[in-house]
């Protein structure tokens, strides 16, 4: 009966493994790529590994991931084992109810668990702040912190909560397999119940505990969705960092760190397996030699390296304690600033420079779009100090009283900002904002994939390039494309006009014009020649041009949007001073030049903007083409065709949201 697998059966199994490992192999291979692409091989290099160790954001998130997974696993293993024993000792009915509740986190969709916890924490924090204020009011012995936020603590709680069920699930069967009389026998022979636990129960269920802990750790490392909703603004796990990148380009540094993690686990597993196999062989040999001399038997009986697991366990525990103390000491009392910006929207060396100059630690996260940022702020999940929203979102935030007035005395570099970008409609008296970048929206197309140069928004809605067009995945920009094409005011509040624009989009979508709805994923798609046309921002076009010289950019003849993204501080931000220090630093000419060079968005800093062509020549020893500079910082003539988005009334915003969801269906 055993071992009658045919060749065909084996082939099937092998194919399944190929299917499981092909993408992983690919990731590993491309971590050694000299180029930055995930599809084109440019020669062997270890460069990404070198860069990895200099990348503070990735290293920090790896560290957070390992720490949270280790802590959660240890705590969940203890709690889960005790809980399983407790359940085992309960009456059937009670146990049944509790096991059902225990299964909820596993049966429930991860997104619901994440969302539920997020809602719960936010509600709890609100209650807490009232409670703490009340306690602080009636006594003066100690002061409770009134403001709690999502962060490492909530992340850890969430991980423990979804880990415990896995531990219980693998410990419970072992308990059930255990002979019930063993415990009674031990106690009849004089054990206390504590001794019975240590000497009888624990050895019986040990394999279950180990496999439970391993499962929990694996789940913790791999988790993304629950962390996404509970991590808040100050900590990000590796998965969250990767998610931020999958929208643009995943840097091969991520391949490199994953290869290292993967390799480490593989090595550990290989070592334990070899050990087990060797032990098995010894066992077999011992059985074959029943008449061996006592000395020989003793030699075989002694298990080789039986101290190794203990050493490993002690080592892991020591590392854990060390990590925790390092974190605790590092974060104690050190000034921090929590920033939320957009993907690939800063020269990351500026963060290091700022940290070195001021000693303030920067927690840098990214949001996907203005609307996503708004949701993040509203839900309480995003507890940032500095944000960099666009014009129309700024006025909405001001209207809702979500921004703090800035103390411009702390931001002397504000004077360097060109007057063109001060007192704009979104912040008429300029009390809340310091501009970060500005630019235009237009159509990016691949000249090798279109018949003739594109000049009009029409291509976004016609069948000519159906299946090759990329549309914005945010309501304001997508609707604007349609509104411009129809010749309506882009800030219209007329429901009929908005419906027309929506119908145009919906119709084009149904005809299959759009290959996909994208935000930063547009990078990979246009650079790789996977799509011909996409509407996006000028600065990003210039970034893509570096990787694909066939791309062209046009501000359509019907007009388009020009935008300003500005730095603001959120109401009651806990680190306002640090936030203003950051804003002042970024508004300076040096950082503006570095940023312009890195992200290709035009700077509002007059001096930086004017000196950029010279700066470019100095850096790259070639002239900056005037056409490129024009796309980056368009002339007044082009800007005259463009309009700023203005904030819309609440009922129109609701309409936008409804239409947007309807478009998605």
């Amino acid at each position, binding site marked *: 009966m055993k071992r009658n697998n045919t060749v065909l059966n084996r082939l099937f199994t092998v194919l399944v493994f190929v299917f499981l490992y092909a993408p992983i192999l*690919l990731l590993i291979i491309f971590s050694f790529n000299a180029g930055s692409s995930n599809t084109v091989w440019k020669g062997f290099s270890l460069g990404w590994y070198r860069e990895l160790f200099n990348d503070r954001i990735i290293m920090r998130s790896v560290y957070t991931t390992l720490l949270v997974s280790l802590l959660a696993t240890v705590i969940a293993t203890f709690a889960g084992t005790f809980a399983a024993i407790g359940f085992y000792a309960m009456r059937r009915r009670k146990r049944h109810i509790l096991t059902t509740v225990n299964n909820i986190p596993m049966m429930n969709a991860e997104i619901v668990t994440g969302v539920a916890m997020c809602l719960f924490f936010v509600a709890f924090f609100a209650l807490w702040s009232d409670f703490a204020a009340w306690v602080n009011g009636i006594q003066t012995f100690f002061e409770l912190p009134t403001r709690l936020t999502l962060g490492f603590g909530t992340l850890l709680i969430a991980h423990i909560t979804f880990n415990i069920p896995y531990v219980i699930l693998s410990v419970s069967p072992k308990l059930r397999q255990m002979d019930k009389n063993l415990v009674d026998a031990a106690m009849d022979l004089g054990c206390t119940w504590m001794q019975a636990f240590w000497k009888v129960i624990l050895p019986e269920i040990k394999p279950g505990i180990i496999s439970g802990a391993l499962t929990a750790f694996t789940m913790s490392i791999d988790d993304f969705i629950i962390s996404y909703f509970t991590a808040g603004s100050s900590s990000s796990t590796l998965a969250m960092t990767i998610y931020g990148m999958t929208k643009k380009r995943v840097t091969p540094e991520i391949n490199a760190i994953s290869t290292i993690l993967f390799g480490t686990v593989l090595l550990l597993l290989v070592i334990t*397996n070899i050990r087990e196999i060797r032990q098995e062989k010894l066992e077999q040999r011992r059985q074959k030699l029943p008449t061996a001399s006592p000395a020989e038997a003793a030699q075989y009986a002694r298990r080789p390296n039986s101290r190794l697991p203990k050493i490993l366990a002690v080592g892991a525990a020591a590392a854990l304690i060390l990590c925790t103390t390092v974190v605790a000491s590092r974060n104690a009392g050190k000034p921090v600033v929590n920033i939320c910006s957009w993907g690939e929207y800063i020269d990351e060396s500026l963060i290091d420079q700022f940290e070195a100059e001021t000693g303030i630690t920067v927690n840098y996260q990214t949001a996907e779009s203005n609307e996503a940022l708004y949701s993040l702020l509203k839900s309480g999940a995003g507890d940032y100090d500095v944000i960099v929203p666009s014009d129309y979102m700024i006025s909405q935030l001001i209207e809702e009283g979500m921004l703090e007035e800035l103390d411009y005395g702390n931001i002397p570099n504000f004077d360097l900002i060109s007057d063109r970008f001060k007192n704009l409609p979104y912040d008429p008296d300029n009390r809340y904002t310091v501009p970060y970048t500005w630019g235009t929206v237009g159509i990016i197309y691949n000249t090798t994939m279109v018949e003739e140069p594109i000049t009009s928004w029409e291509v976004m809605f016609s069948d000519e390039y159906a299946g090759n067009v990329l549309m914005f995945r945010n309501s304001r920009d997508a609707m604007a494309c349609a509104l411009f094409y129809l010749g309506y005011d882009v800030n219209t509040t007329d429901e009929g006009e908005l419906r027309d624009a929506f119908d145009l989009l919906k119709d084009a979508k149904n005809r299959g014009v759009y290959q996909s709805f994208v935000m930063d994923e547009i990078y990979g798609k246009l650079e790789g020649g996977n799509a011909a046309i996409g509407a996006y921002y000028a600065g990003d076009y210039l970034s893509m041009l570096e990787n694909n010289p066939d791309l062209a950019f046009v501000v359509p003849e019907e007009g388009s949007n020009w935008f300003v993204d500005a730095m603001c501080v959120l109401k009651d931000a806990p680190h306002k001073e640090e936030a203003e220090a950051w804003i002042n630093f970024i508004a300076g000419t040096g950082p503006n030049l570095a940023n312009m060079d890195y992200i290709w968005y035009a700077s509002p800093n007059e001096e930086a903007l004017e000196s950029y062509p010279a700066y470019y020549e100095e850096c790259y020893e070639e002239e900056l083409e005037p056409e490129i500079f024009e796309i980056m910082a368009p002339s007044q003539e082009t800007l005259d065709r463009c309009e700023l988005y203005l904030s819309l009334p609440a009922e129109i915003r609701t309409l936008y949201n409804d239409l947007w969801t309807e478009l998605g269906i």
Partner: protein
Amino acid sequence: MKNKLSHLATPYVIWMALFVVAPIIMVVIYAFSAADGGFTLANFSKIGTYAVVFSRSFKLALIATVICLLIGYPVSYMMSKEGPRFQRIAMVLIMLPMWMNFLLRTYSWMSILENNGLLNQLFQKIGLISLYNSIFGTNIEYFRMINTSGAVVLGMVYNYLPFMILPIYSVIVKLDHSLIEAARDLGANNVNVFRRVILPLSLPGVLSGITMVFVPSVSTFAISKMLGGGTEMLLGDLIEQQFLGGAYNPQVGAAISLVMMVIVVICMVVMNRFGEGEEQAVML
């Protein structure tokens, strides 16, 4: 003695009440409240418009689950028939991919399936595309694989297949071989042994495998965003959009989550009726 031991569970029971039950109550409260805090049923009235999304999500998740079962069951069965050393290695190999972050693995599929991706490049090199063109008289430069529902299903199967294999395998490998021998002695042939002995006994593993594949598939949002291109919205996307995406409306999001939760629970309860009473999910 027994009662004393049962106190060991008390801390966890409190923990569950706080972090499992209370959050779900929060979802229920949100689902029934208006933006200004009052009681309302309006959030559910919108659900009708999302019926398409519901049916699409459940359809894709169902397809993915069936494919996982069709691949996972034979693999588990064959693994259980190999030698112990092979079995151990195979188990490790199935768990190991989870150590490469799932977003990254999915991203890797993106670069394989793109119009200009590795697979299409391969097809071009071996002349498959020109062969296809000459047979069907078409003029395509690539096979469209990414941004289709097929790619989303592939992503689900790829990511959740281990969750199908592990429970089934762990049940099959523990089967009592004397039962199989007894069946043979009583004259059953291979097919009958499988159908009347092995299959019914492995049912608990199959059921928990189905749960562990179906639930994450029905609620995924990262996979559909990366491989589906956002043109076909799934339930996960819809919920994410209400909470953290463009259309901020946590009340409606909670209502959708609640409805999804209820449907999933009903599915599971109905399915577990086929299983044996108290038998619970088996993982390892």
